[in-house]
C-alpha cells in the first residue's frame, strides 16, 4: 500500500511536468517562431513477484506472473518542429522559413546558434541582426544609401540603390539537423546544437530539401490552442485521479492503524 502512495506521487509529478509544459505552450501562443513541446511518459520498472512462464514442473508453466508496477516518469520532453502559420507583417527584414531549416546566427558572445524566428533588424552600421543582437551568418550589411532590400525565395538579398540599380548584397544560408528534436532551447527563440542533434548541415534555401524564404512574413507559434486545452483538461483530471488514489491509500493506512 505504501507502493500505491508512491506510484500515485510519481503520477502527480509527471502530470505536474505536463501541466508546466502546457502552460509554457499557452503562454507562448503568440510568440513568433515558437515551437510547442511534447512530453512523453514512460512507465517505471516492475517488481516481478512471480515470473510469467516459470516452470512449475515437467511440462507445466505458470500461465501468468505477478508483476507490480511502480508508477510513471517523464521519459522525454522535446519540441515539435511543425510549421507554424504565416503571419504577414510586410516588414522588409522579417523573414520566414517555409519548410525545413534554421537561420544560423552568431550570438553577441560569439557563440553560434540557430533560430526559426526571423524578425531581423538593422544595427547602426546596417548589419542584419535579431533583436537580441545575434547577427545573421553569413553577415549581411545593407549599404547606408540603399532604399530597401528584397529577399528572394532562394535567399538572395538584393538592395535597391538610388540610381535605380539593384545590387546583390548577400546570400542567406539555412541549416538543418539530422535530429532537430535534439536541439537545446536557450530561450528567445534561440536553439543550440547538441551531441544529440548532430552537426548542422548547411545549404541554400529551396535546395536539397531546405525550405524557402518568405520576406515580409513571420512564422507564428505552432501551438494549437484547442489541443492544448484538451491536454490541460486531461492533465488536470489525471492529476486529480492520482490524488484520489493517494486519499484511498491514506484512508486504508489510517483504517489499519485504527484496528486496535
Amino acid at each position, binding site marked *: *500500500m505504501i*507502493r*500505491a*502512495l508512491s*506510484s*500515485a506521487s*510519481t*503520477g502527480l509529478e509527471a*502530470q505536474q511536468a*505536463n501541466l508546466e509544459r502546457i502552460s509554457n505552450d499557452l503562454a507562448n501562443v503568440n510568440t513568433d517562431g515558437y515551437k510547442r513541446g*511534447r512530453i*512523453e*511518459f*514512460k*512507465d*517505471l*520498472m*516492475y517488481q516481478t*513477484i*512471480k515470473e*510469467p*512462464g516459470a516452470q512449475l514442473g515437467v511440462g507445466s508453466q*505458470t*500461465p*501468468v*506472473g*505477478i*508483476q*507490480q*508496477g*511502480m*508508477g*510513471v516518469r517523464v*521519459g*522525454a520532453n522535446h519540441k*515539435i518542429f*511543425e510549421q507554424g502559420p504565416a503571419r504577414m507583417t510586410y516588414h522588409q527584414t522579417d523573414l520566414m522559413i517555409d519548410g525545413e531549416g534554421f537561420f544560423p546566427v552568431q550570438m553577441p558572445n560569439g557563440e553560434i546558434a540557430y533560430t526559426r524566428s526571423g524578425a531581423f533588424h538593422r544595427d547602426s552600421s546596417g548589419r542584419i541582426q535579431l533583436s537580441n543582437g545575434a547577427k545573421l551568418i553569413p553577415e549581411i550589411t545593407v549599404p547606408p544609401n540603399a532604399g530597401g532590400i528584397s529577399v528572394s525565395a532562394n535567399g538572395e538579398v538584393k538592395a535597391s540603390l538610388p540610381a535605380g540599380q539593384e545590387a546583390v548584397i548577400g546570400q542567406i544560408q539555412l541549416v538543418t539537423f*539530422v*535530429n532537430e*528534436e*535534439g536541439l537545446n532551447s536557450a530561450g528567445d527563440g534561440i536553439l543550440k546544437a547538441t551531441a*544529440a*542533434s*548532430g552537426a548542422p548541415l548547411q545549404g541554400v534555401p529551396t535546395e*536539397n*530539401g531546405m525550405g524557402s524564404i518568405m520576406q515580409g512574413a513571420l512564422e507564428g507559434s505552432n501551438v494549437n490552442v484547442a489541443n492544448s486545452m484538451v491536454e490541460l483538461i*486531461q*492533465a488536470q483530471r*489525471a492529476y486529480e*485521479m*492520482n490524488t484520489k*488514489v493517494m486519499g*484511498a*491509500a491514506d*484512508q*486504508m493506512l489510517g*483504517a*489499519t492503524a485504527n*484496528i*486496535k
Partner: protein
Amino acid sequence: MASGIWTATAGAVARAQAVDVVANNLANADTMGFKKDQLTFKEYLAANEREHLTADIPRGPIKDRDFHPLDGRDQSFVIVDGTTTNFRPGNLRVTNQALDVAIDGPGFFEVSTPSGIRYTRHGSFKLSTDGRLVTSEGFPVLSSQPGGLAAQIPNTAQPITNAQPGQGGLETQGGVSAGQGSVAGRYINLGDVQGRVSISPKGEVFSGGESIGQLSVVEFSDLSRLRKEAALMFSSPDPSSARAAERSQLQQGVLETSNVNPVEEMSALIRANRMFEHDLKALKTYGDLMQREVNDIGKL
C-alpha cells in the same frame, strides 16, 4: 483461537495489492502505448490441502462435525494469483509527426536494447545523430530483415534468435555487410537520405522516394507470457515465439494512447478500498471476540 482472523487478513492484504495495481495504472493513464495490469485473485482452500478422511464414527451420539473433521481448516483464504496485462488497444491520437507510428492490430515493434531484443507498442521514434531510427531512450528500432528492402533475402521477417546486441560497428549498420544473423544489420538508417519519411501500412519506410527498409512488427500467439519491463518495453521468455505480423497494420502520424480507462480504475479503487474496510471490520470483530474470550469468560 479464531482462525478466521487470518482469512480476513488475507483479504486485506490482497485488497492492498489491488490498490497498488490501480495506483500504477492511474499514474500511467497518460502514458502513450501503456497497457494496464489487472490482478487475478485465487481462492486458497486450506480444506482441500488434506485428504478426505473416512468418517470415524464414534460410539455414542453422532454430531454433524464428526462427518466433516475439518479442525478449523475450512477457511478459504484469498491470494493474488497473478497480474495479467490487458492488451486491449488504446485510443489513437493524431500527432502528425512523421516518426510517430501506431500499430493497428496485435503487433509489437522490435527494439534492440543492451539487454537484448525488446518489444514495444510505443511508436514514437526519433532519429539519432548518425541518422538511425531509435526510440526516445536511444535504442535502435529494427527492420524485419538486414540490409533494407533493396537486398531481399529469403526467409524474411523471421526473428533472429542468435543475435547479440551491440554487434557490429557503425560502418556496418544498415548495410548488407552486417550479415543476416546480426542485429546491427537490422538497424534502420535514415541519415544520408534527405526528404520526408513516409511509412506504409505494411511498415515499409520510404525517405525521399527511396526505400529504406521495413519496420519489423511481430505478433505473439500467447501475449500473457510477455514480461513487462520499464519504459513500455516487453520481453519474451522465448524470442522464437515471435513471428512476423499478419494482422497488424501501421499508421503514420498517430500514436496509441494508454489503454487505462479512468472510470474502470476509479471504480476498481472504490471497490478495493471498501472491501479492504470490510476485511478490517471482520478483523476487528475477531479482535473483539478474542477480547471477550479473555475478559468475559473468566467472569462466568
